[in-house]
């Protein structure tokens, strides 16, 4: 009788642990699909505030523009998209946002430093550098 009770308690604990594990797995799975941004950390550098713009007016760049510019803010997070950063840049009146992806998964099968099969796919952070073109400002003045 006592043995059966111990077995029952053991089985219940195992089932309970399994249920807990399933719940955690479901939560992690759910969160990964929710696409929520984490580790959001932005910095604003400009001494003045610029009027907000329409999102469509803000350029999304993947490299340094040839025109002269000043950096007005940096955005950094996990789970955001270039479109999210464009929206943030529009709110602070930036002309463009330079987007880059850093960190993430690296295949241990790589043999060459310049090869990274997961570059841009399984990145860790997304970065956005919000800029104002200075030539445009000079023309406006």
């Amino acid at each position: 009788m006592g043995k059966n009770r111990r077995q029952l308690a053991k089985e219940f604990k195992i089932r309970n642990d399994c249920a807990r594990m399933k719940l955690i797995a479901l939560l992690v799975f759910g969160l990964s699909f929710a696409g929520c941004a984490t580790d959001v950390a932005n910095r604003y550098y400009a001494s003045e505030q610029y009027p907000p713009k329409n999102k469509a007016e803000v350029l999304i760049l993947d490299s340094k523009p040839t025109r002269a510019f000043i950096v007005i803010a940096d955005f950094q997070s996990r789970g955001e998209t270039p479109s999210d950063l464009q929206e943030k840049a529009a709110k602070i009146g930036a002309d463009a946002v330079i987007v880059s992806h850093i960190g993430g998964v690296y295949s241990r099968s790589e043999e060459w430093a310049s090869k990274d099969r997961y570059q841009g796919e399984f990145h860790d952070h997304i970065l956005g550098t919000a800029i104002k073109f200075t030539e445009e400002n000079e023309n406006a003045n």
Partner: protein
Amino acid sequence: MRIRSITILALLLLLTACASVDVTKTGKGFYEPTTPAEVQILKTLPDYKYVELGTVTVSGFDSKETAKMHNAIRAKSSALGATAVVLTEEGLTPGGWGTYRRWATGVAIRNINSQ
């Protein structure tokens, strides 16, 4: 049941075949990405003038994969515009079945004389 086993095995293989590199930007502004092969791995501060770009933490390598780990650091920090990464700490953590996993953390820097 068979599909579940294959899925678990595939996931395990994927996890063990990959390492993870966390790069966090701490510097200001934007620098053009550099060529990964040109990124120096340093253990001491260089004598040229530089700016700090961010922190780099890498984990998940086999204890004997030191050079491969350095390449991962090069590949992932080049996107930030790093010309070198100064490794500040390195170590090994138990990986199970008597194995050890290698990790390292450092600072991505850029030589201010480089364009």
